């Protein structure tokens, strides 16, 4: 029956091509919109992950509890009554039990690597020029393993942070503000009366102005000295083998610890919600376009069946049973679906290539054009949806055609 379906499609070239274009238009839209959206997401996710890692463990903000203060200041037998009970928040967030985390993370098979951090707001000065930055004290050799920061180094090497002599890597925006160059010494102060010279060993450029204008990296030890808090760690950034497991793993760790455990999705809730809306919009678009295309297929096949009543009658008289007639119409719909799907993903791919080549004149994550994703799953989804929509749309007319009896048709024709 396939052969006859094919011939019937060919005999209505114009109609077939139009409806094929309808289906391919739907697929094309989906592929290109998904390409741009997912590309944007990849870019944003990488930006976010550079700062938060898959899971971020940080000290929870804790209230001052009256009984704890009483217990630590008075012996057990004393009865204490407060006139003004102590309240408020503790002045620093710190991890309760860093070594405990260290042991746990080292033995957890899902953990790829982790890196302790201490973040401080600091003033960076070079001569008269001053900039404030969020200095992340980290362990450089671990940091490069869990983030892609190396990729974004504009000058110098991130690994040089592990050398002695107060090395620092500054964001490109920060470097510009204070006019700092590689190998230059700048003064860094964390506002506790300590000011130390740091040597610029690298300039990092993430391509996100907000971050580049306010970020700097230094050794954990140096920041601990700068903030006069030896041994303190405020965060542990963890990378897992499987990023998709981050939520589950984080939820589990949260159960067994007082510290705050956030996976990257939770830490960037707004962003993840935006992604969900984007996903919805994308699926809504492909759904509506394919719905229209499916209606097109349905209409065309229904009209065709009416025009081909005689042929259906003679096929039945010759001995082609209802199943064969169903196949005859169904194959045409499926052929249009497959053809439109293939054409659509082909054109969609070309459109993606073209979009990627457009120069926007401003920087987006290291280049002047949109990031476009070429996920195989997008193409598979687009193709399967197009074929599936066509299958559904052609099934109804095909079924109706298979129900026609040759006598009904012959009587009407006579």
């Amino acid at each position, binding site marked *: 029956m396939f*052969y*006859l379906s094919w*011939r*019937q499609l*060919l*005999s209505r070239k114009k109609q077939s091509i139009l409806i094929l274009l309808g289906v391919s238009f739907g697929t094309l839209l989906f592929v290109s919109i998904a390409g741009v959206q997912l590309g944007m997401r990849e870019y944003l996710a990488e930006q976010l992950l550079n700062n938060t890692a898959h899971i971020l463990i940080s000290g929870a903000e804790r209230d001052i509890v009256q009984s704890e203060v009483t217990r630590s200041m008075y012996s057990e037998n004393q009865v204490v009554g407060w006139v003004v009970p102590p309240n408020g928040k503790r002045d620093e967030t710190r991890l309760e039990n860093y070594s405990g985390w260290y042991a746990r993370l080292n033995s957890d098979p899902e953990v790829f690597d982790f890196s302790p951090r201490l973040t401080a707001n600091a003033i960076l000065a070079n001569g008269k020029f001053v900039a404030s930055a969020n200095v992340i004290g980290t362990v450089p050799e671990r940091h490069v393993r869990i983030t892609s920061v190396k990729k974004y180094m504009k000058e110098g090497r991130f690994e040089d942070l592990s050398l002695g002599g107060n090395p620092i890597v500054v964001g490109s925006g920060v470097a510009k503000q204070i006019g700092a160059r590689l190998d230059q010494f700048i003064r860094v102060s964390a506002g506790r009366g300590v000011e130390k010279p740091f040597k610029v060993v690298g300039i990092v450029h993430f391509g996100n102005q907000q971050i580049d204008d306010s970020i700097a990296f230094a050794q954990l030890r140096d920041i601990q000295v700068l903030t006069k808090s030896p041994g303190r760690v405020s965060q542990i950034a963890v990378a897992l083998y499987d990023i998709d497991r981050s939520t589950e793993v984080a939820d589990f760790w949260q159960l067994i610890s007082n510290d705050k455990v956030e996976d990257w999705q939770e830490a960037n809730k707004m962003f993840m919600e935006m992604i969900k809306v984007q996903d919805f919009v994308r699926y809504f678009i492909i759904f509506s376009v394919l719905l229209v295309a499916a209606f097109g297929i349905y209409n065309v096949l229904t009209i065709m069946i009416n025009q081909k009543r*005689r*042929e259906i*009658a*003679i*096929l*039945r*008289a*010759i*001995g*082609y*049973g*209802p199943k*064969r007639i169903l196949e005859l119409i169904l194959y045409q719909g499926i052929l249009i679906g497959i053809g439109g799907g293939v054409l659509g993903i082909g054109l969609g791919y070309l459109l993606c290539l073209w979009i990627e080549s457009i120069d926007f004149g401003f920087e987006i994550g290291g280049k002047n054009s949109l990031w476009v994703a070429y996920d195989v799953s997008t193409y598979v989804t687009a193709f399967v949806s197009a074929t599936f929509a066509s299958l559904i749309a052609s099934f109804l007319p095909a079924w109706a055609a298979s129900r026609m009896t*040759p*006598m009904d048709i*012959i009587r009407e*024709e*006579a």
Partner: protein
Amino acid sequence: MIECKGIIKEFGNPPTRVLHGLDFQIQSGEFVAISGRSGSGKSTLLYIISTLDSPTRGEVHIDGRSVTKMSVQEVHEFRNRFVGFVFQFHYLLPELSALENVLLPARNLGLEEEKHQSAMELLERLEVANQHHKLPGQMSGGQQQRVAIARALIMNPRYIFADEPTGNLDTHNASQVMALLKEISQSEKTTICLVTHEPEFAAQASREIYLVDGRISVPEA
């Protein structure tokens, strides 16, 4: 052999009776003409004995099998292998060439390779072999009807049912088609049932079933 017992056919609601309890037999190899005026029920009868339609009451036995008891699959296979149809309109598929149209019944059984040779011979015999690659739209009415006859003959059927096969043709082509059917009936021993309203063609058959208002009328001698 086709055996009809008490064939009644009614249409519509309230039912109008078109055929009034017909009993007759058609022997193998017979050339039977079913004739009568328009509205006499001759086409209805043809479609009932040819398995395309079913009677409201009564039974049709073909080669000893009751048509009403055959499954959809069996009916179609029976038509495919043993029955050839020729209609007033040729009903060729416009997308397919003459040869492909002739081979359609064979294709359904996966026999188009084996039947290719005999299809060409049939077209030769019907004097349309030089048209075999043409689409139906490129042929004349007479040529189209001959291709349709070739399609009816391709499986060497036991039965040929023809509903006014000459109705749409000019006198010359019509008599050629009639001559052809007669020839087939003689050379292949095929049972042929022909519906026609032209007494001249009905007379060429070996037997005539003349219908008047849904009843078989005994011809006055």
